[in-house]
């Protein structure tokens, strides 16, 4: 039942992000104002533990459920796309107070106006795809 395991991971992710308040617009603004450690604690502890977890999984020679070695596809080399694309994303993140994960989760919490944000995000992705070859990367 592969479908079920992804469904459960998604449900778990949704619950954690609501209970951590990371889906809150207010928490994002508070973070960008450096007025609370909360969001830095969440992201920081997730990353530190993540470094350790991935290192252990690779080091131990663990195989994934497909029978392959643990491996994350590395991102392409580059600078412009990351700094520029990242900044554009940051503008939207602070304005909507939501990144792509929370957008869906917030829909589940009953904020249906988030559908407009999601539709606009799909449009933004579409426009990027069309302009891709004309943009510096």
């Amino acid at each position: 039942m592969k479908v079920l395991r992804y469904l459960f991971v998604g449900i778990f992710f949704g619950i954690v992000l609501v209970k951590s308040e990371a889906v809150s617009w207010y928490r994002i603004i508070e973070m960008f104002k450096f007025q609370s450690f909360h969001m830095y604690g969440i992201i920081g502890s997730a990353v530190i533990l993540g470094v350790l977890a991935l290192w252990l999984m690779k080091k131990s020679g663990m195989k994934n459920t497909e029978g392959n070695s643990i491996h994350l596809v590395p991102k392409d080399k580059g600078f412009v796309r990351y700094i520029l694309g990242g900044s554009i994303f940051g503008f939207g993140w602070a304005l909507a107070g939501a990144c792509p994960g929370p957008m869906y989760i917030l829909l589940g919490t009953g904020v249906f106006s988030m559908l407009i944000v999601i539709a606009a995000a799909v449009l933004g992705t579409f426009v990027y795809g069309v302009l891709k070859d004309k943009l510096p990367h």
Partner: protein
Amino acid sequence: MDFLLKPWPWYVSGPLITLVMVFLVYFGKNFGMSSNLRTLCSIGGAGKYADFFRYDWKAYRWNLIVVLGAVIGGFIAVTFLSDGSAIDLNPQTIADLQQLGFQDAGATILPPEIFDWDAVFTLKGMAILIGAGFLVGFGTRYAGGCTSGHAISGLSNLQWPSLIAVIGFFIGGLIMTHFLLPLIFSA
């Protein structure tokens, strides 16, 4: 069981987010929520307009299932796992936001001044939601990932591109929060 209903502290939430990534990596996948936006474009037929959307999106259906789960998770969290506590924001944040016209910051997950239908169906309100969504969608694909793909997975995998992207997230977020939000909401 009471602790489940209260907001979870960062040192519980952060490690649980790591667990989400670990599960997906163990399943041979990756933790990246923004890819779904591209998948949705492809399903909608965007391949007619750009090569970028011509790929085997069916191989990414698993990620849409994660999204479906996330929506359900959001519903479960507010319906069964919340005691309605306000968000324990820094009083300074609450005061700063009040100056911009946001009342009772933290009483709800999101500010009604942006997300309630009364606000949404004004020219300004609609422009804010569409603009914000567009920037997130465009920026995340340009940067090749979002908070989950770069900030959590990418940094955990010690990738330089992800660190540059996260610095970008903060450049944009800081400019928006400190310079643009006061312009957008004080008027």
